[in-house]
């Protein structure tokens, strides 16, 4: 399983703060592959990940990650807008 988290306007548009994704034990996916898989699930995902959506950042296991970063079972993958704290 990969634990997926959504923050800020991504969570608002999706209407959920997270979900689990099944990944077999030794499968190595990537952030990009998981995003593409989610987009095929429906309009709400297309709205946050598709062309024309705002800029989205991601983290794997609480470290900023790139689109081609590997994702394995047991990982925590978070999607969020560029940060605006401070």
């Amino acid at each position, binding site marked *: 399983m990969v634990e997926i988290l959504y923050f*800020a306007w991504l969570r608002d548009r999706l209407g959920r703060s997270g979900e689990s994704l099944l990944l077999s034990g030794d499968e190595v996916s990537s952030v990009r592959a998981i995003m593409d898989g989610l987009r095929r699930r429906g309009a709400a995902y297309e709205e946050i990940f598709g062309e024309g959506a705002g800029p989205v950042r991601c983290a794997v296991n*609480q*470290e900023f990650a790139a689109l081609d970063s590997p994702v394995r079972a047991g990982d925590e993958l*978070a999607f*969020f*807008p560029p*940060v*605006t*704290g*401070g």
Partner: protein
Amino acid sequence: MQVDIRIQEEAFSVDAEIARLAGAGLDVGGIGLFMGVVRGDMGLAALALEHYPGMTESMIGRIVAQAGTRFGLLACTVIHRVGRLPVGAPIVLVLCAAAHRGAALDATGFVIDWLKTQAPFWKREEYPNGEARWVAARESDEAAAARWDAGGPAEA
């Protein structure tokens, strides 16, 4: 270095936090501080702040550790509030204690500049008419952090 990093809804007392720095010893000669406040221009009523628990603390910890090494800090406290904060409310406190003023003030700028670009917080603006909108990140914040060097805390 004495480090204290807290994410909380509650307000904080600067006097209490400065008193706590006394634990860093007798070599402290200067304390630098930055406090961010909810600015009320444009008719804003409040900010709602959310964060990514866990990642926030570890990212701020990394920024503080790098500031400690680079500026020879004796103590550093970072408090960031989350939840709904009305106009005029303090949002964030950065306190850096060092032997001399230059290091204390430079470290304060370093920590807040990197926190703005590296710590996973998000602000939503709330207006008196009920409208709300997520704040967009500013390129000027990236530029301010990049001033400090090419790599920065993310690479540490």
